[in-house]
């Protein structure tokens, strides 16, 4: 009898743990904190960020948000928020000048989101974003494989804002999906995702802006390590890597 009771207790505990796991991973996220609370939370988690003004709260998806801010030193920064373990947590704070790509792991397929907060808004009109793959030709085991190049572009207007986010279009995600495991037999992969694709970006100057726009990318970043951020490649008009 004692043994049975023990088994029963164990079963209850196991079911409880599984239930808790499902509850925490499928439960609806709580309402997003107010700007005041966000400011406090960032400054507590990453005191170096020294947030002065929250600019906006940008919805990426149900569990991910981006909060652009201006710091005491007048730097334009971004904070990345993830609903995890029943709490909205700030995963990273940075004040880089260039757009970054936030890779959000999802059950089905990863999401890729361009994010930026730049102080060049009076010089930059829009961004052009790229999904790129080099043309390639491989001979392998007496067979040959031709890989057409990919160059997909999207122009995103800044609308006089310093900040913004841009999720890659469905078509880009589809093309990227097709390259995932299907071609691993053939290709020597070089990308971070195990495929040959690269993300790129290009700033487009406002009419009348003649001087080149310099993005230094010497900002700071503070991360809890729970986030994947990447640098897309910067391109100029007439770059040798682009078809124009």
């Amino acid at each position, binding site marked *: 009898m004692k043994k049975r009771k023990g088994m029963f207790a164990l079963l209850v505990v196991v079911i409880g743990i599984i239930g808790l796991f499902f509850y925490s991973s499928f439960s609806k996220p709580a309402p997003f904190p107010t700007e005041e609370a966000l400011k406090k939370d960032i400054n507590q988690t990453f005191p170096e960020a020294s947030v002065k003004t929250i600019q906006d709260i940008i919805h990426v998806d149900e569990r991910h948000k981006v909060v652009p801010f201006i710091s005491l030193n007048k730097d334009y920064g971004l904070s990345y928020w993830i609903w995890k373990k029943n709490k909205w947590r700030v995963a990273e704070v940075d004040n880089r000048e260039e757009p970054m790509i936030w890779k959000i792991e999802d059950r089905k397929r990863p999401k890729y989101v361009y994010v930026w907060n730049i102080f060049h808004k009076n010089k930059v009109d829009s961004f052009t974003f790229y999904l790129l793959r080099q043309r390639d*030709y491989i001979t392998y085991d007496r067979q040959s494989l*031709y890989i*057409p190049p990919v160059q997909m572009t999207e122009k995103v207007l800044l609308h006089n804002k310093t900040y913004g986010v841009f999720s890659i279009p469905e078509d880009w995600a*589809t093309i990227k999906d097709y390259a995932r495991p*299907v071609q691993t037999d053939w290709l020597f992969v070089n990308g971070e995702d195990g495929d040959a694709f690269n993300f790129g970006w290009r700033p487009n100057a406002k009419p009348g802006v003649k001087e080149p726009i310099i993005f230094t990318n010497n900002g700071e970043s503070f991360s809890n390590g729970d986030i994947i951020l990447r640098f897309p490649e910067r391109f100029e008009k007439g770059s040798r890597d682009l*078809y124009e």
Partner: protein
Amino acid sequence: MVTIDYSSIAIIPVITLLLAWCICGYLFYRNYKKHGGGIKIWKAVLVLFVGLFSFSINLNIWNTALKLSILPLGVWILYFILKGRNRWKSYRSFAWLGFSFNFIFIVASLVAIPFQQWIFPDKKPATYLANLENAKLITIHPSAKKKIVLDRKKLAGKFTHMKQREIYSDKWFSSLYGMSPSEINKKDEHFPYQLAGVKPKWGSGLPSPVLYIEKDGKGILITTPQQQLYYRLNNSVLKEEQ
């Protein structure tokens, strides 16, 4: 969202494997009958499964992975455990029967190959282009003509008038030899479209193929994990957007 099958069910090997198990079951049943019930059935089954265990080498014949058993490890283990006792004699046939099942499975995989080729020929485009309802044309290169859409009526013509062609890699790529990277990237692309959402025949076990459409809409480059096939059609599958 376009869903991609990375591996669909391969129905032919499943069927031959099921048949192989039926044969194995029958052989076991016959052998068990012969022993006249001297051994408990669960013991005989256990010995049989231990007997299956073997040292094998992996072969790859016609893109099919085969396991060729060489050393009957399971039989040896059973022999060392049971040799001192009388029982070995009565269990021996079950142990060897288990080992011999490995060869039945190999035969099953070998039998599957011609049937697979017959029902899902891997050189026929119809194998890869079976489900076109969800086909979606995606322009992947800026040298493509603007405002071009898929001509679904033509596409529904099941690619009947297709002719296989050599892969003109020299035209598409090797002619670019000696060019600088910037010159190469300025060239128009022969295959500026990808056809997404097409599924292979159900039960073929093949992943969704990567399909590129030629700029005139009359060529299709089918890319699978094993090979690349190039077909030309009489009519374009593309049309101007209205």
